[in-house]
Structures are given as C-alpha cells and as structure tokens.
C-alpha cells in the first residue's frame, strides 16, 4: 500500500473517536436534562459541573481529531 494512502486511511480511522465523544456528550446533556426536569431548582447549581463534564468528554474526541490532523499534515 502507498504510504500516502495509508495516512489518509489512518486519518479517517482516527476520526472515529468523534462518534464516541458525540455519544458521550449526548449522554451528559440528556442526563442533565432528565435530572433538571425532576428537580428544576437544583439545575442552575449544577450547570458548572455539566460544562466541566462536557469539556472533559469532548477532549477524547478532540484527541482523535488532533491525531487525524497530525497524520494528514505532519507525519
């Protein structure tokens, strides 16, 4: 296989973690919403935690994105 083609395939594979991050972020916001509907008075106090969870989850997807970029442009 051509090295160039292998890079492209690798970059494509490295983009797969974005799906996991998407699912994770969906779970976070979904669970926050279901919790917030059950106890709306506690929702505002937990928004910070929500955003931290979002940021930490998003990071795993971004790692995939960065690896794809490195494969495409750096290696």
């Amino acid at each position, binding site marked *: 296989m051509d090295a160039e083609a292998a890079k492209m395939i690798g970059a494509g594979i490295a983009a797969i973690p974005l799906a996991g991050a998407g699912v994770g972020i969906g779970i976070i916001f979904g669970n926050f919403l279901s919790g917030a509907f059950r106890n709306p008075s506690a929702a505002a106090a937990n928004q910070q935690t929500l955003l931290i969870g979002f940021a930490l989850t998003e990071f795993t997807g971004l790692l995939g994105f960065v690896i794809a970029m490195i494969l495409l*442009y*750096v290696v």
Partner: protein
Amino acid sequence: MTPVLLFLASGAEAAESSGGGLPQMDTSTYASQLFWLAILFAGLYWAMDRIFLKKLGGIIEERRNRLADDYDQAAELKAQAQDAEKTYIQALNDARAKASSIAAETRTMLDKEIAAMQAETDAKLSGRVQAAEASIAEMQVRATAKVKEAAVETTQALVEALIDEKPTQDAVTAAIAAAT
C-alpha cells in the same frame, strides 16, 4: 465541478508548498509567539489588576456599602418615626388627661361657686323672709290692738247709744277680753 476539486486539491498543494506541515507545528515561530504573548498578556494583566478591576471592584464595593448605609439609615429613620409616633401618642394622651382634669376642676369650681351663691341667696332670702314675718307679726299685733281699740270704741259707742251711759274703757276692755 472542477473548481471544487481544484479547491480541495489546493489545500494539499499549499500544505506541500509550505513544508508539508501544520503551521501550528512550525517550531521556528514559537519564540516570537511566546515573546509577544508574554508581553501582551502581562500588559493586559497589569492593566486589569492595577487600573480597571481596581476601579470596577471599588465602585461595586462602594455601591454595596452605600446600599447597606441606606438600609441602616432607613432603619434609623423608621425607628425615629416610631419614636415620634410614640411621643405624639403620649402627648395626645397627656393632653386628653389634662383636658379632662381641667374640665373636672372647672366643674367642681363652678359647683362650689354655685353652691356659695345659692347659700348667699338663701341667707339673703331667709333674712328678708324673717324681716317680713316680723313685720307681719308686728302688723298683726298692731292690727289686733287697733281691732281691740276699735271694738272698745264701738262697744262704748253702742253702750252709750243703748243706755246713754258711757262705760269706762277698762270695763269694756275687760268685758271684751272675757267675751273673746
């Protein structure tokens, strides 16, 4: 369709022409980026810390103090108003009590005066009554004497006319006294 492909291809071309790497991975630019970041960030930090945030925090603090002061002042004024109301009610009650006491005093004074005047009038009237009674009694005595005199004279005249003899006064008097 070719321009789209051309555009996509140009990305790879440009990447290849500039050494094939991400611009972010070009370490030759790091020194200048860090240098200017340090200067500008430190400058912004200094300006925020020393000027802007101090001023903004100061004004927020001042407003908080002013609000607290205003609340204190309002509470004080409220207390003052309550005090004033208390004094007012006190004064009102005092005045009312004083008024009623004055009224009672006046009433007793008037009663006394009236009683005194009544007593005086009574005394005066009773004096007059006594004098009138005395004069009536005197007049009665005098009238009785006059009646007796008249009776004596009439009796004398009658007796004279009847028997042509004038009885003495003493005899007539004695006779009348016996008859009455």
